Structure formats: C-alpha cells, structure tokens
C-alpha cells in the first residue's frame, strides 16, 4: 500500500496541476509578466488584471477567459469588449435609477451603462457630496459603478496612440490612463512610473530608450489587433526586458513568476474545495461507517493543508512580510491554524478514542475542515473588496511586536473557534445519544485543552499588542475597540475556567461556553470593525453586519433550544445525576 504521506502529496500535486498547464497558450506569458506599479507595489500585469476584473465583476475570469486576456482585449482591441457583461451591480435600485432595464443582482456591459452615462455621473456627484456615513447601499453602489466605468473608459484609450498609422514618435493623446503605470521614468531615483500615454504627453521624457519602448508597445498593439500572436509575444517580451534593465536588477523581479503561479493556482480556493470534500466524506462515513472513507477525509484534509500552506508562504515571499498583516490574511491564517489544530487534535484523539467504530469520530478532522472551509469562504468574499496585497500604512509597517502580536492572537482565535466547534459536537451528542457519557467525557477534555490553548495565545498576543502600543504611542492599554475585543475573549475564557473550577458549571456548561467563545471571537474579530471606530478598523465590509447578526442569533437559538431539550430529556438513564453535576447551574 502506498504510504499516506506520499498519497497526500500526490493529491496536493493534483490540486496544483491545473496551474502548471498553460491554459491560454504560452504567448500570453510575457503580457502577464509585464510590471505595473499600482498602490505602491510593483506587480505583474496578471495580478493587476485579476484585481481589476474582480473589482468590476466580482469574478477573476470572464466566461472562461482569464483576466489577463480580457485586459489585453480591453487595451488592444477595445471596440470588441464594449458589450462584455462585466459591471456587476448588486442593487436592483441602481438600474432603475439609471433608467436601464434590469432587475436584481446582474452584470451589465459598458455599452448598456454608457447609454445612461449622464444620469450616472449626475447621481454619482450627488452621492459623493453626502457624508460617507449617510450613504445608503444604493449610493455606494452608484459610486462604485461610476468609478469602475471611468477606469474602464480610460483603459479603452490607453493605447490609442498605437492606432496612429505613421511610424515614429506618436503625438500626445488626450486620454493617458494614469492607472496603467507600466513605465518607470528614466530617472530611477524618483520611483515614479507613468502610463505610456502619460509618458508621451510629458515633454522632455523622450530619450532614445523610451522611444524604443513606446514603439515596441505600438508594435505589440498592432500585432494583437491583427491576430499575430507570436509577434505580440515577442514585442511585449522585448519591452519587459528593456524595463527590467532600467530598474535596479534583482529587486522584485524574482517574485514575479511566483506571484503568477500563485494567481493561477488560486491555492485558497483549492484548499476550500479539499476541506469541503472532507466534510462530504465525513457525512458519507456517517451513512457507511468504516475505515476507508475516514482515511479519505484525512487525506484530503492534509492535501488541503499543504496547498493552503503553500498559499500562505507564497504570499509571505511575494510581499516579504509576515503572514498576517491585513484583515484578509487574518481569515486565511485563522483558517490555516484551525486546520492544523484539528489535525493535531485528531492525532491525540485517535489514541484516546479509538474512534473509527463510532459516528462523528474524527472530531479533529471535522473541526479543522469546518474552520478551514468557513474562514476561507469568508476570505474569498472579503477579497472582492479589492487588492488583498496592499501596502501597509506607516504605523502598521515593520515592527516586531506588531507583527508577532497579530499572528499570536490569530492563533488564539483559531483555538477558541475549534473549541467552540467541538462544543457543538458535545451538545449534539448529548441531544442524540444522552447515554454516551464516555464519549462526552473525552470530548469535554478536548474542549478544555483547546480552549486553554486559545486563552493562552490570545492573552500572550494581547500583551504583545500592549507592548507594541506602548512602544509606538506611549500607552499599554487604551480601551480601543479591538483591544476590548481581545480582552473580552480573555475574560470569557477566564470566566469559563474559573466557573468550572468552582463547579458553578459542568462539562455541558463548558461546551455551551465554548460555543459562546466562537461568538466572542467573531465579535472581537470583525464585529468591532463594524463599529467603525478606533485605529484598528479596517473598513466596512458591506453585508457582513447582517451575516454576523444572523450567526450570533442562530448560535444563541441553538444553545437555548439544546439546553431546553436536554433538561427535559427523559430518555437519558442518568439524566438526573448528570443534571446535578453537568448542567448550567448558577449558585
């Protein structure tokens, strides 16, 4: 039989393979590798295209066509893209306000929206004058649409100069598409980049090198328009070489290939798939108990973790920074830690439970895959807000305490979440199999251990955060909402442990408390961002508030109903005895 490690590696490779095969033909590679400076970072055109298309349409590909080839069409054959349905409108009132047909959440083409351009501009100006807090979802959506269509319109003309039939240096055009900053100025010290149109329009920036680069672009544009892919590829490649020669060699260029590979692999989506399959296998194993399906679920969890780990590490290398620096990365990292914790737990449980003969045996696998899946889904949703690899504002950059405290707290969050998931298992087990006390005893031990783990890491992380705050602005503690959130998790866990020690609650109380700790973590983590105050707020994620309320409400209902049922349950032979020692009783 093949070793488990080998098969798991093979599986992970299989998840990676699609990225290794060039889908569009290699002639697109040079275009993907083109450097662009956006928001302070040199990135490959591939990333820029994906982010842009995601920002427009909520997807990173357009009907099977990858983002780079979409962008190339927009730039080089703009006329052919006008009826692509790329502008996602999330609110049905927006098309109504613009007077264009459409209902619900749907995508429009530039042509459709442009038919109401004046109206859009007028509405957007109105919305822009409102205070940010007073804008409704409709106004935000109108502004977003306005900004997006304007970016698109400017890109349509970005290579207008290439249409010029004459050879030689083109005349300046009106539209410079400043967003397409692909050409560094000849004086490298300024660190300033311009779009080709911007370069042409600026007098005094035309040394021979620049001249050559512009004509390479012109050649590429013409080649693309007439379908000569080989020539297009060569011209862009020559352009790239010329740019790289002008930049300080060695910097940033090394990570370009890695970043393109990362983009193509989409590791977090693959990991999501793997974790989803794990859950499917676990459900199947409830129906068909046996070792094999369990083995499969373990295999997929490990494979998912491998791909997930690759993604985390690739991001660290690309950005040369620690794993958690923004809200998006907290989701990814907590998911990763959750899976890891689940696997560690499974390793210990396998020894203590001998689990394969009973349903819901692989608790560690289950908890890990649930945490991994849910938080990666949240991360995916969040990534629609824009570039997830943005640069960091001054106060958040490069400080040992800052970076370590965020990572440590994220590990603590993951611990509390995993404990909470196992808490669900405990409660459900008591509902379904009231007599199965041995199982619950062991589950309770896991809850205790994982929750203690969560408490310890959250505490250490919070203390490190305090040290950072003291070093950075002279106070260890300032009652900032995010600090309060972390404190709340610590207090909640401390309450549970002390209450358990004082016998104010039993194992069931501890399980319920662990479920409560998920609520606390979720509130502390992004609930406080929704309050919109404090330096830690990362900005409002639309729609999150509703989900959050729904989740918290759902958990509370679950707890109340479960407790009511358990208290009334006459089936359990030892329910009375259990009640005296195990239920939530306050002295």
């Amino acid at each position, binding site marked *: 039989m093949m070793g488990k490690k080998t098969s798991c590696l093979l599986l992970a490779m299989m998840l990676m393979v699609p990225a290794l095969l060039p889908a569009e033909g290699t002639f697109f590679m040079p275009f993907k590798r083109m450097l662009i400076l956006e928001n302070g970072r040199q990135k490959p055109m591939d990333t820029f295209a994906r982010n842009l298309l995601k920002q427009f349409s909520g997807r990173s590909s357009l009907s099977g066509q990858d983002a780079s080839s979409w962008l190339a069409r927009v730039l080089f054959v703009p006329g052919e893209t006008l009826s692509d349905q790329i502008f996602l409108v999330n609110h049905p009132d927006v098309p109504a306000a613009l007077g264009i047909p459409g209902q619900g959440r749907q995508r429009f083409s530039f042509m459709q929206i442009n038919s109401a351009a004046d109206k859009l501009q007028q509405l957007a100006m109105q919305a822009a004058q409102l205070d940010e807090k007073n804008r409704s979802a409709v106004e935000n959506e109108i502004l977003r649409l306005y900004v997006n269509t304007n970016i698109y319109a400017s890109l349509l003309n970005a290579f207008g100069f290439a249409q010029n039939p004459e050879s030689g240096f083109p005349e300046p055009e009106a539209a410079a598409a400043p967003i397409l900053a692909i050409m560094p100025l000849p004086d490298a010290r300024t660190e300033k980049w311009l779009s080709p149109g911007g370069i042409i329009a600026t007098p005094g920036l035309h040394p021979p090198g620049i001249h050559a680069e512009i004509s390479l672009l012109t050649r590429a544009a013409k080649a693309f328009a007439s379908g000569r892919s080989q020539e297009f590829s060569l011209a862009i490649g020559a352009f790239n070489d010329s740019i790289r020669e002008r930049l300080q060699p060695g910097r940033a260029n090394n990570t370009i290939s890695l970043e393109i590979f990362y983009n193509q692999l989409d590791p977090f989506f693959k990991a999501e798939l793997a974790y989803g399959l794990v859950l499917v296998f676990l459900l199947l194993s409830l129906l068909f108990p046996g070792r094999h399906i369990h083995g499969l679920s373990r295999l997929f969890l490990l494979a998912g973790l491998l791909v997930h780990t690759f993604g985390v590490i690739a991001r660290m290398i690309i950005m040369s920074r620690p794993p958690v620096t923004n809200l998006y990365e907290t989701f990814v990292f907590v998911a990763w830690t959750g899976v890891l914790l689940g696997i560690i737990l499974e390793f210990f449980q396998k020894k203590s439970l001998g689990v394969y003969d009973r349903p819901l045996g692989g608790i560690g696998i289950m908890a890990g895959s649930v945490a991994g899946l849910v938080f990666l889904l949240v991360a995916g949703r969040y990534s629609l807000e824009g570039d997830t690899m943005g640069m960091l504002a001054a106060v958040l950059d490069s400080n040992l305490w800052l970076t370590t405290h965020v990572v440590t707290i994220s590990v603590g969050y993951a611990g509390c979440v995993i404990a909470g998931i196992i808490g669900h298992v405990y409660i459900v087990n008591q509902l379904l199999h009231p007599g199965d006390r041995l199982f619950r005893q062991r589950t309770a031990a896991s809850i205790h251990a994982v929750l203690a783990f969560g408490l310890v890491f959250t505490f250490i992380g919070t203390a490190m955060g305090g040290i950072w705050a003291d070093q*950075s602005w002279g106070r260890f503690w300032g009652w900032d909402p995010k600090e309060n959130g972390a404190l709340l998790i610590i207090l909640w866990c401390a309450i549970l442990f002390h209450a358990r020690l004082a016998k104010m609650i039993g194992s069931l109380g501890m399980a319920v408390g662990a479920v409560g700790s998920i609520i606390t973590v979720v509130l502390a983590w992004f609930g406080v961002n929704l309050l919109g105050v404090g330096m830690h707020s990362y900005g409002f994620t639309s729609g999150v508030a509703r989900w959050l309320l729904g989740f918290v409400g759902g958990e509370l209902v679950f707890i109340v109903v479960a407790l009511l049922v358990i208290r009334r349950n006459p089936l359990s032979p030892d329910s009375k005895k259990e009640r005296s020692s195990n239920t939530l009783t306050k002295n």
Partner: protein
Amino acid sequence: MSLKIVRWKPVRILASLQFTVIGLLFMAILVIGGTILQAEKGVYAAQQNIFQSWVFWLFGVLPLPGMLLVGSLLFINLSAAVIFRLKYRRSRLGILLVHIGLLVLLGGGFISSQYAREYFLTLSEGESSQMANAAHEWELAVWTQAGMKKQVQAADIADLRRGRPWPVSGSDMEVAMIRYFSNCRPAASAEMGETVLNEVAPAADPAENIPGAVLEIRASQGAARRFSIFSGNDFPVTQRYSDRDYYFTVRLKRIFLPLRIKLLHFEKTVYPGSEIPKSFSSRVEIEGGGLRREALISMNRPLRFRGYTFYQSSYGEDGQRGANSTFAVVKNIGRWLPYISSALIFLGLVVHFIGHLAAALKKYPPEVRS
C-alpha cells in the same frame, strides 16, 4: 495554610472563585458597554463614564460599578486568593506566577489610569520649545507687564472649580470661580465690554470644547468685580486693579520639560505611485542637563528622556513655514509594570505547561499517552 484567618468567612468569600467569576462577568459587561458607548459618544465619554470611573449611573438612575471599582475588587479578590487560597506547591508554581503577574497587571493599570499624563507639543521646522500642552486640561493664567518684564502665574482650572479662591501672588487679590462651563459659546454682549457665555453640550472630543468661566476678583479694599472669560478669546481679558493691568486668559495646561527640543526637519514618505504613507519622521535636537544631541523620532520609534517619552503623533504641511510636527509627550511612572507582569505571566505559563508535559510523560508510556 492552617491559619484561622483562612477559614474566617469574609476572607473565604473574598478569596473565592465565585467572587472571581462574578467580578469577571461584570468586567466583561463593562467592556461591552464601554465599547458600544465609545462607538456612539467617542473615546473620551467611554473613558470618563466607564473605564476610568468608580461608579456610573445607567440612564441617570441606576448606579453600577465602574471599571476602577470592579478592577479594585478583583485586585482584592486576587490578592486574597494568592495569599490564602492558592496552593504553594511546586506543581502549582506556574499558576501562582500567572496570578501574581495578573496582580501586577491590575496594579499597573490602576497606576497608569491615575498617574499617566499625556501632553502635546507642536513645532515648526527650526522652532524649539521647552513646554508641552495638555490635550484638554485647562488652566487660568494671569500676568502683569512692567516694561519688558512679564510675570506669569497659572492656576489649574480643576482646582478653581473646587471653589477655593486663588490668591494672586504679588498682590492682595484673590480670584474665585463663580461658574464654569466645560463647553460654551460667547453671545453678543449685553453692554459694551461684557461677554455673556452660553453653555452648550460638551463635544465628543474634549479637545473641541471651548471652556469658559465667570470669575470674581476679591480684594481687601473695594467691591468684588465679576467678569467672563473663555478659551477661544484671541486677546486676554484686562482687569485694572490698584493701578496695574492684570491680563487673564484660559489656556491649555502647560508643563515644563526637562529639555529643550528643536525640530530640525520633518519628513513624510509615501509608497511610489500612491498616497499611502510609508513613514513619518522628525529629526530633532535635544538639549538638557548639559547635553546636546540630535535624535530621530519616527513612527514606532519614540525618543525617551528623563521619564518623558516623545512619540511622533501627527504633522501638518503649512505652505509658508514648511512642515510642522506634533509629538505626544507621555510621562507614566507605571510604565514598566505591564512589562514585568507580562513576563511573569509568560514565565508562569511556560512553567505550568512544561510541568503538565513532564507529568504526562511520567504517567504514561509514549504509546498510551493522550
């Protein structure tokens, strides 16, 4: 411990776990309430009403313990537990250390909340100063001028508000505060020279308040005289008394620093092609105690000098005079306590978990360990 006092009921209650649980629950509720209040009314209101208060009134009628009270009760509970309840055994050493660390943390928090002071100092490039202003604590300053010589004295508004008259030295007059407005607007004067102040609701950010007061000058001879004063005044209020002019003004409280600090150059950098700030830094020259040197204060890299710490707080770019830079100046005698407590707690956790691991290894042979 088999001392009698341990079994004495009040001590047992004070040291009990139940006390801890209830105290922590209260603390959690205060944290939630304070955070929500902060979102609605601002940091200052939350600090004043909940985080820095002994008792606060819910809806103005129901008295509830503030964070200081809850923290103090937990401090007593924890002290009692450390003294009377926790077991002084080697196996419990880690837990003991963690709880002693928590005592230091609570104590340090209390000391900081009572004694930490924060001031601000804004300098333009080339400018130097030996003074810093409080963020929103005020003082009444009065001065007389004789030729080039200006004699200034100041009294804390907080002291004046307690009702004690302030004797102005070098004269036989006293200044008493009749009324105080924490935030007010001057209205059109009823008579010439008479300012009427209208009280308005305090701002969410106390730095935006314009405090004002009705003062009374009392002297051994002559009738008492009343006048209004507020901080937004561009000119001091002049009062003539026994042939001398006294100038009064309400201003942010000032302190003298043990050094003179001069801003040489402020620099802000952004990431290329963006408006995202990459760094802020101020090159300064400090002079004090016979020393003179240059220093760099930047984000996350403060300057420490004789108990004061200078942080890069904000900046301004004003066209004519070049950039200016604002430093937060913090003095906190309890500054090291959180560090000590964090270290104790960390050590305690390490000891505790290593102990657990060792016990587990001893108890079970590797195969059955869980």
